[in-house]
């Protein structure tokens, strides 16, 4: 896509409408990484998601948008089974990763999360050194054996997360001493340190200022060359800027999913139209 990411304007209401054929071509090049079929989620007696079916393409950014409480975060957390730890949460339907059911009884959520990393709304580095923050994941998964391995992984991950140059002299300092944007990039480095295939981001920029947001967005742009990224965002501009496909959720239902340009310029559903034009939400 765009190579000179830093030069992009930070605030842009809508992405420039790309040529329709290019996008279609792009979609064809991307194979389907994850699928969701008829996913229903219940918190106790309350149903949070209703029959959501969605394909997530590899090497692209999929944005989940929608008003608060529409179930987009719930859906995201189904993808790496983070909902398992919530008491009274029940998931039906099927979610697959490369065709394998992630809710199959023989799949352990620990193994799944090694392939599906997650970045959270609030930067949440461990209160340990920067080095430890990144090395922790590979270590518990047995990916690194020696100190040299660990250093290689840490340097690689931090470099990929665009943080290495800023912190290379203070890897032993606490990760919580970094600025908010740096902390979030550290969390991204931590997520990619275990070499996942999918990265889930739950409103990763909502606690950051516009400059830090721009850095994260350009980082996403780079990362999508190698990873399948799913991002939940409240900012439609952000969805328009970073994503190739956008899914609009409303009241627990998936209303519409399509190429981002189409969602923002010519949505099929009137609710999508109302939402993206600011009629509600």
């Amino acid at each position, binding site marked *: 896509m765009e190579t000179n990411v830093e030069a992009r304007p930070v605030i842009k209401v809508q992405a420039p409408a790309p040529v329709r054929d290019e996008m279609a071509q792009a979609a064809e090049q991307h194979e389907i990484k994850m699928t969701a079929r008829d996913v229903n989620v219940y918190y106790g007696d309350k149903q949070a998601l209703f029959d959501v079916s969605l394909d997530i393409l590899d090497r692209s950014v999929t944005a989940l948008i929608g008003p608060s409480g529409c179930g987009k975060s719930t859906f995201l957390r189904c993808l790496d089974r983070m909902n398992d730890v919530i008491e009274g949460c029940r998931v039906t339907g099927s979610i697959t990763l490369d065709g394998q059911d992630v809710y199959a009884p023989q799949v352990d959520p620990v193994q799944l999360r090694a392939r599906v990393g*997650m*970045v*959270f709304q609030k930067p*949440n580095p*461990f209160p340990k050194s920067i080095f430890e923050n990144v090395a*922790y*994941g590979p270590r*518990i998964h047995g990916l690194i054996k020696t100190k040299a391995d660990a250093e290689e992984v840490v340097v690689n991950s931090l470099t990929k997360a665009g943080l290495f140059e800023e912190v290379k002299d203070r890897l032993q300092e606490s990760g*919580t001493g970094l600025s908010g944007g740096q902390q979030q990039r550290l969390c991204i480095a*931590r997520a990619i340190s275990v070499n996942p295939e999918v990265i889930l981001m739950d409103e990763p920029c909502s606690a950051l200022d516009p400059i830090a947001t721009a850095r994260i967005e350009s980082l996403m742009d780079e990362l999508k060359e190698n990873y399948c990224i799913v991002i939940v965002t409240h900012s439609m501009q952000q969805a328009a800027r970073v994503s190739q496909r956008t899914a609009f959720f409303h009241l627990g239902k998936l209303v519409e999913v399509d190429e981002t340009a189409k969602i923002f310029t010519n949505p099929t559903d009137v609710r999508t139209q109302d939402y993206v034009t600011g009629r509600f939400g």
Partner: protein
Amino acid sequence: MSEAQTIGRRRPARELASLESNRRVRARYAADRRLQAYGIIAIGLAIGLLGILLASLIATGYPAFTQTKVNLEIYVDPAKVDPKDPAQGNFRAIVRDALVSNFPEATTDKQKTDLTKILTSDASYIVRDYVVRHPETVGQRVTLPIAVSDPFDQLYKGVIPKEVDALSWSQVEWFERLQNRGVVVAEGGRTNLKLDVYVDPARIESGPPPTGDFAAVARDSLQAYLPDVHDTLLFTMLADNAPDAIKQRLEADPSLIGKTVSIALPVSEPFEVLAKGGTPKVPNPRFTAAQIAAFDALAARGLVHATFNWELFFNADSRFPERAGLAGAIMGTFYMLIVCFALSFPIGIAAAVYLEEFAPKNRLTDLIEVNINNLAAVPSVVFGLLGLAVFLGFFGLPRSTPLVGGMVLSLVTLPTIIIATRAALKAVPPSIREAALGVGASKHQVMLHHVLPLAMPGILTGTIIGMAHALGETAPLLLIGMNAFIPSVESMGVLEPATTLPTQIFSWADSPERGFVSRTSAAILVLLGFLVVMNMVAIVLRHRFERKW
């Protein structure tokens, strides 16, 4: 007003400080100040009471931190001590000879025994221990500081006086009543009671010369003046020669028998002093005159001195306050707290982690939770009874031992530790758990690698508070017999009978010897010192492990 509300016009400026609002503001400030004052009064009261407690403890306890000793030159007589087996020598005689040699005027055995009471009854053991450690001193003269016995220790420190008031408060009061009635008269440098004496014919034979119980007549006449006093102490007011005054009068005039006559009866020595405005004193009945003289002589030669009482910390318990120390109690407390910590820390954390992180929410876990909270409120003496019945009675564990004490106290501390640990676990932000889960940590890895280390400051604080609670517990330990008399620390162990600081304080407070009064306060100060140290450790640990996120 209505004009002002029309659209487009400015509203007239409202007065910022109207009378009404001024009053409300004043009332509010007054309420603020009142609330502040209540707080300050409460804090002042608390600090004041604490200050009184500390001041009284220090005031009564400080003499125990010094010990009076006599530098005694001792000839370790080879005739009394076998150099090959010095432990078996007759050290009692050696100490006695060493002391008595200073006072050649003491010749009889009784006098010598009387003098040895200046020194502690343990003096022979002090010398024996020294000679056993230094066998080369047999046949030589050595100078050893020997603790004096408790009364002389108290005397030297000025806690008890050399002389005490001869008269009780009520004796003085009776005398004042007689003075007010004008009965007390001074005649020729002597003080007499001018009493109307009824010469009872039932007591006195007319003679001549008149005979009978003149003392009883004197007593009856004095009693007649103070009919409400029913105490034979009253008659100490009369001098020994008071009956003679009656006898002489009757010899002069036998016809007085059966009549009432005014006779001046002399008062006894202390009342003589009292009548002249002095405070009558008698030597302290604890000491004999010879002892006092000998002790003063030793002091005059500079042999008596008060030194810092290290023995208070390094000696075990003793029947003699001048030799009693806290080493046994401190060791016992140490062993007991080790057992208590070893049991309650892992069990408490395991229980709290399970309840907080793993337990399903159902009626059973709710019941367990409620009961753990209730356990924290159970009086500790109940745990003592439980320990007595179960640990001693059912399992037959050795009684009085730190093992059982620690087990009982872990029951006391467990609820505290569990509650504190659960609070600390709850306080770990959920984002840390999510972060760990997000990189694929399993539940136990999240727990062990992230949540527990972050909760550790809170857990340690709770544990140390629980331990400090255990340190001060007395009642449950008394029930399992942990107030053993421990005269030596050498045999102590987890499975040996022991005593602890609070139970030692309890035993000392129960002892009649004067020296134990100050030692009780000193022991309380030591216990408080340990508590302060533990709380400071808790604060330091909390700051050291505290992390920000």
